[in-house]
């Protein structure tokens, strides 16, 4: 009996669906400490992955993730505190507000090229933090305390975080395998050429910016529920932007599993492992960031893939590294006679 031929892109999608279901189910099993850790990791993953779509696939290097985390957090918190609506609506308010903000700013932001975009987003993040500090309705500098009994906690919050992270992963898969993603990458690689071929540059960038900021805002809402007390120094801190960049760049910008790896490495190896040595952790983060861009600009994940491919033995037609350089697999070669599971297939490693 032969398996029906399935396009390769369905493998990662199925893997995502499966792991989402498994993680979601884990929400009812794990103890509270693990759940809390899980929520943190999943929020970082969502933020890093949203940044990855924007910067890695879209070429828009944003330093403004903090602005959307803050918008999401505050939108959810203020809806919860100032209206009688329950937490589901508070969660829904977060991405809507974050996307509205990015839509509003996009008119100016998307006209900025290269480094100017980065600086513009940084300015927005800092301006927003300063604004919230002065906004007494939103609690000013001391922030907002959420009614603890009105927000989901423990297993439910974890499940919410799983869904948000899954959404971010799904967006990345879409950016990686869809025609939209292909055109986005074309703009990233050579904007004049892409525009010359008839790709609507601004519209595609906006289509990357909106869901990216929406997901960052969603993660912000989850973070607000987790923190219970949110303040401009907490949820609007530039360190959110920084972590998004750090985690993605370390793992591998423009790859699908790179940010997953990056979140693990940075959070486990540095933030948590060196919790008592905050200065040292900051030093290592700085050195890591510089070292990666200097010596392994593609991040750790592509390096691991290459090493794994070498260990598993090169196939006759995959002796070059060219497929990892382009960020896209060299066609879908050999897919018809290769019904092997994705995890054991060397060439597919880059693609997932």
């Amino acid at each position, binding site marked *: 009996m032969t398996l029906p031929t399935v396009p390769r892109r369905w493998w990662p999608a199925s893997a995502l669906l499966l792991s989402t279901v498994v993680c979601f189910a884990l929400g009812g099993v794990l103890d509270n400490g693990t759940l809390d850790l899980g929520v943190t990791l999943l929020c970082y993953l969502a933020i890093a992955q949203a940044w990855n779509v924007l910067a890695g696939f879209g070429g828009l*290097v944003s330093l403004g993730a903090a602005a959307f985390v803050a918008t999401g957090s505050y939108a959810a918190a203020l809806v919860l505190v100032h209206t009688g609506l329950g937490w589901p609506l508070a969660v829904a308010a977060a991405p809507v507000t974050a996307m509205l903000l990015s839509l509003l700013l996009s008119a100016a932001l998307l006209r900025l090229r290269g480094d100017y975009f980065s*600086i513009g987003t940084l300015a927005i993040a800092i301006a927003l933090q300063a604004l919230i500090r002065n906004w007494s309705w939103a609690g000013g500098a001391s922030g907002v305390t959420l009614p603890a009994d009105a927000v989901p906690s423990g297993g439910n919050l974890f499940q919410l975080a799983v869904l948000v992270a899954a959404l971010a992963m799904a967006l990345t898969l879409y950016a990686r395998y869809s025609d939209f993603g292909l055109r986005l990458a074309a703009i990233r690689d050579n904007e004049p050429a892409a525009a010359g071929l008839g790709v609507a540059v601004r519209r595609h960038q906006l289509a990357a910016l909106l869901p990216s900021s929406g997901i960052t805002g969603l993660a912000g809402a989850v973070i607000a529920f987790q923190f219970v007390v949110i303040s401009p120094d907490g949820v609007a801190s530039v360190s959110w932007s920084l972590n998004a960049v750090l985690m993605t760049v370390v793992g591998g910008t423009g790859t699908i599993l790179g940010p997953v790896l990056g979140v693990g490495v940075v959070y486990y190896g540095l933030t948590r492992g060196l919790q008592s040595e905050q200065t040292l952790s900051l030093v290592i983060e700085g050195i890591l960031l510089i070292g990666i861009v200097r010596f392994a600009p593609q991040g750790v994940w592509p390096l691991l893939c290459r090493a794994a491919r070498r260990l598993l033995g090169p196939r006759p037609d995959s002796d070059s590294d060219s497929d990892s350089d382009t960020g896209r697999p060299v066609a879908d070669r050999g897919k018809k006679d290769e019904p092997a599971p994705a995890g054991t297939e060397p060439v597919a490693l880059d693609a997932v």
Partner: protein
Amino acid sequence: MSLDVLAAGILAGGLYALIGLGISLVFGVLGLMNLAHGELVIGGAYLASLLVVDAGWDPLAALPLAMATMALIAYPLQRYLLTPLLRGSKSAPLVATFGLSLLAQALFQAAFGTHPKALPAAYADTGLSVLGVRVQTVYVIAFGLTVLLCAATHLVLTRTRAGSAVRAASADPDTAAVLGIDVNRVYAVTFAGAAALAAAGGVLTGVAQSFTPSSGLPLLLTGFAVMALAGIGSVGGVLAAGVALGVLQSVSVGLFGGGWRDVVVYLAFFLVLAVRPQGLFRKAHAG
């Protein structure tokens, strides 16, 4: 709105210009957005604090030493770390300076702690009456020094051989290299010069107000705002932009209260960026 407010704004603007000058020099010549510039400024303040707080020097005496030390630290950073990155991917130098800024903050924390520091000087808190307007002495000194340093930078760029090399490397690095200019060295020297200017700004900032390891970021943003406003990239433009920003800030504090100081500057910065999207330098495309 009194003349005092206006004068305070103009004088504070001098410091902003000094911080913005280094940023626009590096961006204008190298096409590099240096996100660690704020840390160069604060680093200058910390270097001076070693002499001022611990050895009892006057900040103005410590200033040249802080400038020279900062330049010495900055030169190899550009030469061996940032210049090789400039040829690589578009975002690599930006991310690297981001990392440098992190690293510097951590080093400040380790070496000096997180408590706010200030550089004590006789003229730190005293006032001065100029034409009937009360101003802070330290800002008058800072403004004078800024004008001096701006003039010196302008003269070096326009009247010296080294300045010609910098302008050539800025206009067309490839042709400049063909003509025998060591572009990598020019880049490193430019970066070191910008770091020295930053250190000077840092010492003066340290006298005027207290600073902590994380004070660099708002200064960076202010510096970028100056660069964005200055537009053409002339040294005089930077000075004018700094003063404009200082006045804007001073007036908004007078109107809305102290909390809005930075908000107004950042929003003005963003608006300027939005209106002049292709960058405000003539040579913005060189990068």
